[in-house]
């Protein structure tokens, strides 16, 4: 085998550089963010659906809301237990979750999701 030394050295170098992100960041994992609830959200106890469902499906609910309110004109959402809510991001969601930075952005930044809701929809100014 010709140039054995060079090849092996090259392979080692390649391996080190290739795996750099893994060992460089080892143990430096940041904690999973917990969305913070406002007082109003805590008092309400229940969101429009139960927490675990909201956690995994809120994007689906919001997507349905926007389609059904705009296209079908049906603006009232009746949840599984029969309670009614106006299907509105700015006026229903943000009424309780008025802390966009600590509630929405925290996880979205962590998961590198960039929803464009706020290009048009207004969120409450944060006073706290």
């Amino acid at each position, binding site marked *: 085998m010709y140039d054995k030394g060079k090849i092996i050295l090259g392979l080692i170098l390649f391996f080190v550089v290739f795996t750099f992100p893994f060992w460089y960041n080892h143990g430096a994992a940041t904690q999973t963010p917990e969305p913070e609830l406002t007082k109003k959200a805590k008092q309400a106890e229940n969101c429009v*659906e139960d927490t675990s469902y909201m956690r995994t499906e809120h994007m689906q609910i919001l997507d349905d809301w*926007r389609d*059904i309110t*705009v*296209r*079908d*004109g*049906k*603006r*009232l*959402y*009746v*949840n*599984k*237990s*029969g309670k*009614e809510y*106006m*299907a509105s991001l*700015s*006026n229903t969601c943000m009424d309780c979750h008025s802390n966009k930075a600590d509630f929405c952005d925290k996880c979205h930044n962590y998961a590198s999701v960039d929803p*464009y809701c706020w*290009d*048009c*929809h*207004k969120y409450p100014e944060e006073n706290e």
Partner: protein
Amino acid sequence: MDNSRRSFLKIAGVSALGLGGVSGLSAMIPGPVIAEQGTSAPLYKDTQKALTAGRWGMVVDTRKLSRSLCEKMVAACHKAHNVPDHDHERHTIKWIWTDGFEHIFPGKDDEYLPERLNNLPILSLCNQCNNPPCVQACPTKATFQREDGIVMMDFHRCIGCRFCMAACPYGSRSFNFRDPRPAIDEENPDFPTRMKGVVEKCNFCAERLAEGKMPACVEVSEGALVFGDLEDPKSEIRKVLRENYAIRRKQSLGTNPSVYYII
């Protein structure tokens, strides 16, 4: 390899049978059943206060229009819908505006037109056509017609191709060449703004009708605008149309507008 053609075909035949058998079997086994989420799935309803109609329409009584009244109606609409006020004329966004008689009714202009009509600003807005050319032109169905006749924009879907603007014979649509937000004096939190790159127009205040309110312009019109259900013979708008001769804009195009003008 010393496989003959004969042995190759044998193996191929057997494996084909085997594969076929497996897929045949799997077709007989029922697939996973999608779990039902409880018995009462969420559903969507109209709000209780919502005003409904077979086909919404409007009558503009030009006899009651004045410059100051028109300005008031335009301001009310543009404030309610976060319509930006750009300083550059070419970037203008308008949902409702005024223009001269000769522009609103081209072809009906005349040398001996009553003096009143020569200087009168005439209110103009989306005609909410019953045969809307913009809806046909839209490639993404961002512009659509509701069951109650309102031609509406779904800003979420608009890709800003502006085919609808080319298709509209009334110039009722505006394009956001710039981010509208800096040009809005006071944002109304109850209605979203738009973003750069979408088309917008009058929506007959669909969001106010859902709350049981009359359109913003009608509310401040001091009787110059009559709004109601064109399909209901007992409605006020039908009464007004029965008692007065009203015309519509560019009727010969066949767009069948829902906005009438009493001259």
